C-alpha cells in the first residue's frame, strides 16, 4: 500500500488531475440525465424515494398482499383534511364553516388532470368522503326510508347546519370519521390516484382554503402521502444544510489543530471527492435517494477526513524534525499505512455488514458507505501526500510544533491532559476496570429495559405541521392510523361447493342430471356456472326447458349461498364480537366492518328503532338488507368491506396511535381473540395497511440489525486477530467499542428512548468506526514497545503523539456529525446525537480502558517480547 503513496509523492500532479476528472465524470453523469431526462433516457437521473413501504422490498409477501388487497377492496392512499372550529359553540357545524367545507369538497372532487402519458391523475371522486358526496339513510315519513346526500347543498340556517352533525353522527360509518365525536370538527378523506401527486393536490387544496378568509376555522392537511412528500423536501434540506455544515465544522476544527489553511485543504478535497464519487455512483447505478441514503454525505465526510487527520497530525509532529516534505511523508506513511488500511477495512466491513439486513434502503446505505470509505482511503493515501508535495517547502516553514514536544513537560493543553490520562490509567488500572465493570452491569440492566418501537409520523419534530395535525385529529376523531384485517375461510370452499352442488342436483330431472355431468368441465367458479346456465336458457326451445334451467339456477344459487359465508348472520355476529373486543384494547378508536352496514340499514328499515340496530336472523334477511343498501348513491362502498362473493371480509381498524408497539398489541389481542373464540366456520386472518406494514419492517430491522452486528463483530475480530497476529490482541481491540455500544444502548433503555429505525442502525454504524481508535492505539503501542521495552515506559510515549492523533480524531469526527442535530427530521437528529456520543465515548474508552487492561494483563500481552 505504501507504493501507492510513494507513486503519489513522485507524480503528485497526475493524481490531482485524476481526482478532478473522476469528480467531473460523476457530476456530469448525474447532472445530465437529471436535467435532461428526455434526451438521456438510458441514464439514471436523481430520484427521491420517501415511501416508508420501500423499507421492504417490492416482492416482500406482506407488501404484495397489501397491494393486492388494496386493489381488491378499492382502497386508496388518502389525503385527510381536518377542519376544526374552536370558537363557535357548534364547532364547524355552522352555516359559514359548512359553506366553506362544501366549497372545498366540490372543488376537491374536480381535481384531476392527464399526465404526460395521457393517464388520468388526481382525486378519485367516487371514493371521496366529504359531506356532499356521502349518503345519509334515514326515515322520511311513515314507513318510508330515504337515501339522500348528507349535504347536497350548504345549509341555509344554523339549525340545518346542526342537523348535518346529528345525521352523520347517527351513521356508524361516518361518526367519528367524517364528523368528530365532540361535534366540533369534520374530516374530509380525499383518495388520490397515486402517492406522488399528493403534494400537487394538497397545494391546490391549500390555495382554495386560503381563499375562504374565515379565521375561525383551522384546516389541517395530513395523511401518509402528505407526510411522505414533505419528508422528501425535508430530506433535501437535510442534505443541503447538514453536509455543508459538517464540512465547515471539520474545516474549522482542523484549522484550529493544524493552524494552516493551505494544508488542511487536502482533507477537504479528499472528503469532497469521496462524497461526489459515492453519491454519483449511487445515482448512476439507479439507486434512489431514500431516508437512509440521504445521510451518506454526512457520514462519508467525517470518515473521509479521519485518515487524513492522522497523516496531518503525524506530519505536523514529524515535519519539524526533518524539515523535508518527502522524508517526513515517508516517515508518516511507513508508520500509518498499515493502521490506516485496517481502520478503513474495518469501517467498510462494519457498514458493509448492513448489506445483510433484509431492508433494501439500509442495504444500499451500508454498501455505498463501505464503498465511500474505501474511496476515501484511496484518496487519502494518494491525494494528501500529493497535495503536500505540491506545496512549496517555503509555505511549510514554521509549520508544526516549533520544537519537538517535550514529552516529559508537555506544553499544549491537549498534550497535558493526555499525559495525565496516561499516568492515571497506569497507576489506577484496576479502578478503571472496576468502573468499567460497573458500567457494563448498569448497561446490561438498561438494555433489558429497551422498548422496540417506531412511528414514521414521529420522524417529524413535534412542532411540525404534520405532527400538529396528527395530534389535533387523533384527539377528536377515532384515529387516523388505518390497519386492515381480512378474514377468510381457512379451507378452500370451491371443492366443498362442487360436492354439495352435485349432491343437490340428484333426482332433479333431466336437465339437472345433464348439468351435473357437465360440472367437472365447467369447474366450480360461480360465474362460469352461471354463464353456462344462461347459455342453456338462451338456447332453450320452449318455456318448459327455460324454466327447468331457471330452477337449476335457483338451486345453484341456494347451494352457493352457504358458501357466501359473510352473508351468514352467525358469521356477522362473530365479526361484531371481534369488533367490540378490538375496542376493549383501548388502542382502537373505531372499526368499520360489514356488520355496521347491515345493522344501520336494518335499523332504518324498522323505523329507525335502536332495537333494530342488529344483525337480522337469516341469511336472506341479511341479503335483502344489503340489496336495500345498494339502492343508495354509493352502492360500491360495500366492496370496501367484502367481495361480491361474500367469501371474505375486511375490517377497517382506526388506531389513534401509529406506534408500532400499539399496533403489535392490537395484533396480539386479535390473535388471542381467535385463540379463545373459535368462529362458526374456521377462519384465517391476515393484516394489511401501512400501520401494520411498519411493524413488519421493524421486526425485520431488529433481527436483521442484530445479525448484521454479530456478523460484523466477528469479521472485525478476525481482521484484528490477523492484523496483530494474536487472538489476545484481537479481543483487546474489540473491548472499547463493545463497552461503548453496551453503554449507549444501556442509556437508551434507561432513559426510555424507543429502539427505532435510526437507533437500530447505530450499532453497526459505530462498530466499524469505534474500532479505529483501538487499532491506532494498539498498533502504535506495539511499535513503541519495541523501542521502549517495558509497558511503563511505552505508555508514556503512546500518550504523546499517538494519543494526540486519536484525541484530535475523536473531536473532529465526534463534532463532525453534530450538524445532523440541526436537521428538520427526528431520525437524523437521533443518528447525529448518538453517533457523536458513541464516537466520543469510544475515544475515551480507548484511552482509558485499553491502557488499563494492558497494564493488568501486561504479561499475557507482551509475553513474546519479554521472552
Amino acid at each position, binding site marked *: 500500500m505504501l507504493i501507492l503513496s510513494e507513486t503519489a509523492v513522485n507524480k503528485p500532479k497526475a493524481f490531482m488531475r485524476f481526482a478532478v476528472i473522476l469528480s467531473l465524470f460523476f457530476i456530469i453523469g448525474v447532472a445530465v440525465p437529471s436535467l435532461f431526462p428526455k434526451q438521456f433516457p438510458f441514464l439514471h437521473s436523481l430520484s427521491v424515494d420517501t415511501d416508508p413501504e420501500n423499507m421492504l422490498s417490492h416482492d416482500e409477501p406482506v407488501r404484495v398482499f397489501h397491494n393486492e388487497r388494496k*386493489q*381488491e377492496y378499492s382502497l386508496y392512499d388518502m389525503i385527510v383534511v381536518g377542519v376544526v372550529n374552536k370558537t363557535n359553540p357548534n364547532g364547524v357545524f355552522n352555516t359559514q364553516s359548512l359553506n366553506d367545507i362544501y366549497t372545498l369538497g366540490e372543488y376537491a372532487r*374536480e381535481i*384531476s388532470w392527464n399526465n404526460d402519458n395521457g393517464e388520468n391523475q388526481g382525486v378519485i*371522486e*367516487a371514493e371521496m368522503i366529504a359531506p356532499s358526496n356521502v349518503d345519509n339513510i334515514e326515515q*322520511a*315519513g311513515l*314507513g*318510508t*326510508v*330515504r*337515501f*339522500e*346526500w348528507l349535504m*347536497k*347543498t350548504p345549509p341555509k340556517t344554523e339549525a340545518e347546519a346542526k342537523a348535518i352533525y346529528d345525521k352523520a353522527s347517527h351513521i356508524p360509518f361516518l361518526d367519528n370519521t367524517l364528523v368528530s365525536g365532540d361535534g366540533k370538527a369534520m374530516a374530509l378523506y380525499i383518495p388520490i390516484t397515486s402517492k406522488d401527486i399528493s403534494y400537487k393536490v394538497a397545494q391546490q387544496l391549500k390555495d382554495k382554503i386560503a381563499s375562504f378568509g374565515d379565521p375561525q376555522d383551522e384546516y389541517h392537511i395530513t395523511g401518509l402521502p402528505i407526510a411522505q412528500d414533505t419528508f422528501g423536501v425535508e430530506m433535501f434540506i437535510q442534505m443541503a444544510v447538514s453536509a455543508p455544515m459538517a464540512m465547515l465544522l471539520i474545516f474549522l476544527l482542523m484549522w484550529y489543530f493544524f493552524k494552516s489553511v493551505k494544508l488542511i485543504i487536502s482533507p477537504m478535497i479528499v472528503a469532497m471527492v469521496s462524497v461526489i464519487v459515492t453519491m454519483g455512483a449511487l445515482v448512476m447505478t439507479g439507486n434512489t435517494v431514500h431516508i437512509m441514503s440521504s445521510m451518506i454525505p454526512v457520514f462519508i465526510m467525517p470518515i473521509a477526513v479521519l485518515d487524513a487527520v492522522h497523516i496531518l497530525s503525524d506530519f505536523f509532529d514529524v515535519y519539524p524534525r526533518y524539515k523535508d516534505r518527502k522524508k517526513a511523508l515517508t516517515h508518516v506513511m511507513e508508520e500509518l499505512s498499515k493502521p490506516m488500511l485496517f481502520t478503513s477495512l474495518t469501517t467498510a466491513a462494519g457498514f458493509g455488514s448492513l448489506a445483510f439486513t433484509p431492508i433494501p434502503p439500509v442495504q444500499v446505505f451500508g454498501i455505498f458507505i463501505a464503498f465511500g470509505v474505501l474511496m476515501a482511503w484511496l484518496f487519502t493515501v494518494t491525494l494528501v501526500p500529493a497535495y503536500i508535495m505540491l506545496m512549496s517547502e517555503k509555505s511549510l516553514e514554521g509549520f508544526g510544533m516549533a520544537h519537538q514536544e517535550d514529552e516529559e513537560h508537555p506544553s499544549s493543553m491537549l498534550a497535558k491532559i493526555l499525559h495525565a490520562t496516561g499516568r492515571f490509567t497506569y497507576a489506577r488500572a484496576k479502578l478503571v476496570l472496576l468502573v468499567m465493570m460497573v458500567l457494563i452491569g448498569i448497561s446490561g440492566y438498561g438494555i433489558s429495559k429497551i422498548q422496540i418501537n417506531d412511528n414514521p409520523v414521529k420522524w417529524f419534530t413535534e412542532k411540525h405541521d404534520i405532527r400538529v395535525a396528527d395530534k389535533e385529529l387523533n384527539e377528536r376523531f377515532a384515529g387516523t392510523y388505518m390497519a386492515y384485517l381480512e378474514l377468510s375461510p381457512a379451507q378452500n370452499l370451491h371443492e366443498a361447493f362442487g360436492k354439495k352442488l352435485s349432491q343437490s342436483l340428484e333426482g332433479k330431472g333431466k336437465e339437472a342430471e345433464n348439468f351435473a355431468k357437465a360440472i367437472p368441465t365447467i369447474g366450480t367458479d360461480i*360465474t362460469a356456472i*352461471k354463464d353456462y346456465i*344462461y347459455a342453456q*336458457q*338462451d338456447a332453450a326451445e320452449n*318455456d318448459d326447458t*327455460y*324454466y327447468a334451467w*331457471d330452477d337449476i*339456477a*335457483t338451486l345453484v*344459487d*341456494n347451494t*352457493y*349461498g352457504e358458501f*357466501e359465508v359473510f*352473508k351468514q348472520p352467525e358469521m356477522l355476529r362473530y365479526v361484531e364480537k371481534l369488533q367490540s373486543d378490538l375496542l376493549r384494547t383501548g388502542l382502537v378508536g373505531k372499526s368499520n366492518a360489514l356488520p355496521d352496514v347491515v345493522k344501520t340499514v336494518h335499523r332504518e*328499515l*324498522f323505523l329507525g328503532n335502536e332495537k333494530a340496530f342488529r344483525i*337480522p336472523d*337469516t*341469511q*336472506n*334477511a*341479511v*341479503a*335483502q*338488507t344489503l*340489496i*336495500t343498501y*345498494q*339502492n*343508495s*348513491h*354509493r*352502492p*360500491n362502498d*360495500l*366492496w370496501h368491506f367484502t*367481495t*361480491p*362473493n361474500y367469501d371474505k371480509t375486511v375490517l377497517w381498524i382506526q388506531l389513534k396511535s401509529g406506534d408500532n408497539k400499539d399496533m403489535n398489541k392490537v395484533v396480539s389481542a386479535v390473535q388471542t381473540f381467535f385463540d379463545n373464540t373459535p368462529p362458526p366456520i374456521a377462519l384465517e386472518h391476515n393484516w394489511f395497511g401501512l400501520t401494520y406494514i411498519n411493524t413488519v419492517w421493524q421486526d425485520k430491522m431488529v433481527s436483521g440489525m442484530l445479525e448484521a452486528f454479530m456478523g460484523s463483530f466477528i469479521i472485525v475480530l478476525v481482521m484484528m486477530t490477523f492484523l496483530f497476529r494474536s487472538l489476545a490482541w484481537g479481543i483487546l481491540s474489540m473491548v472499547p467499542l463493545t463497552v461503548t455500544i453496551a453503554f449507549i444502548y444501556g442509556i437508551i433503555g434507561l432513559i426510555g428512548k424507543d429502539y427505532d429505525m435510526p437507533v437500530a442502525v447505530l450499532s453497526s454504524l459505530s462498530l466499524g468506526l469505534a474500532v479505529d481508535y483501538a487499532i491506532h492505539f494498539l498498533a502504535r503501542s506495539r511499535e513503541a514497545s519495541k523501542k521502549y521495552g517495558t509497558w511503563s515506559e511505552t505508555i508514556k510515549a503512546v500518550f504523546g503523539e499517538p494519543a494526540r492523533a486519536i484525541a484530535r480524531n475523536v473531536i473532529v469526527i465526534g463534532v463532525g456529525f453534530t450538524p445532523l442535530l440541526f436537521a428538520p427530521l427526528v431520525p437524523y437528529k437521533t443518528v447525529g446525537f448518538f453517533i457523536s456520543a458513541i464516537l466520543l465515548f469510544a475515544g475515551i474508552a480507548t484511552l482509558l480502558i485499553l491502557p488499563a487492561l494492558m497494564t493488568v494483563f501486561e504479561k499475557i500481552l507482551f509475553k513474546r517480547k519479554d521472552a
Partner: protein
Amino acid sequence: MKKALLTFAALVALSAPAMAMDVSEIVNKANHTAYYQGEDGRSRVKMEITDKQGRKRTRDFVILRKDVGNKDKEQKFYVYFNRPADVNKTVFMVWKHVGQDDDRWMYLPALDLVKRIAASDERTSFVGSDYFYEDVSGRNPIEDNHELIETTDNYYIVKSTPKDSSLVEFSYYKNYIHKTSFIPVKTEFYDKRDQLYRVSTAEAVETIQGHPTVVKASIKDLKSGSQTVMTHSGSEYDIGLPDDIFTERYLRQPPMEYIKR
C-alpha cells in the same frame, strides 16, 4: 314598410318555437319508443354487473309494466326478483308520475317488510347496478331543455340540459336517436368539467309484435370502470295486465301467472 318588418320579426319569433317543436317531437318519440310501446309489457331480465376488476354479479328479475292512459305519462312498474336466490321474491314497485315525485315500494320477504322508498332523488343505484332508478323507469323529457345539435344519416343527436341542475349529477347528456325507429341508441352523460363519464347503449334491437324493442342494453360508468348489461328475453306487449296487481297487496302475493308464463 315598417309594418312589413314587424311582420317579419313576428314570423321569426314564431318560427323559433316551431323549430323547438321539432326537437321535442324527436325526444317525445324516442321517449315513447323506449318506455311506452303497447299498453303494457313484460320481460325477463338478466342483469350482469361487471366491475373494474372483472368481478361479476347477476340479478335475474321480471319486469311488468302498464301504462295509465295513452298520453305517455303515468306508468306502473312491478319488478320481481328471482335471483340471487337469497333475494328471491323481493319486489320493487314504481308508480311513475309526471310533475310530481314517483311512488316507490319495496317488499323484502325475509323481513316480511313492505317499505316505501322516498323518491326525491331518482339518481340512486338500482340494486347495486350502474343503472339508476331513472334509467329503468325513464327520465321525463320535461325535466330537460333539448337541443338538436346534429343530424347524421342515421341519427338525430340531441343535447339535453337539465332545467334544475341541482337534482342531477350530470351537466348535460347527448342522445343518439335512430331516425326511423326512434330508438335512443346511445346516451352520453357529461359532467361539470365537460367530460364524458357515463354511457348508455342499446346493444341489440328486435321487432316484437311490430314494436322495435331493445333486447340488450348496457350502461358503463367510466369513473368507476363498472359496467352493467341487461339482457331481455320473452318480451311481450299487450298481455292484458290487470290494474290491481300494481298495488301493495300484490307485493306479498306476486301475480305468478304473469311473472312466470
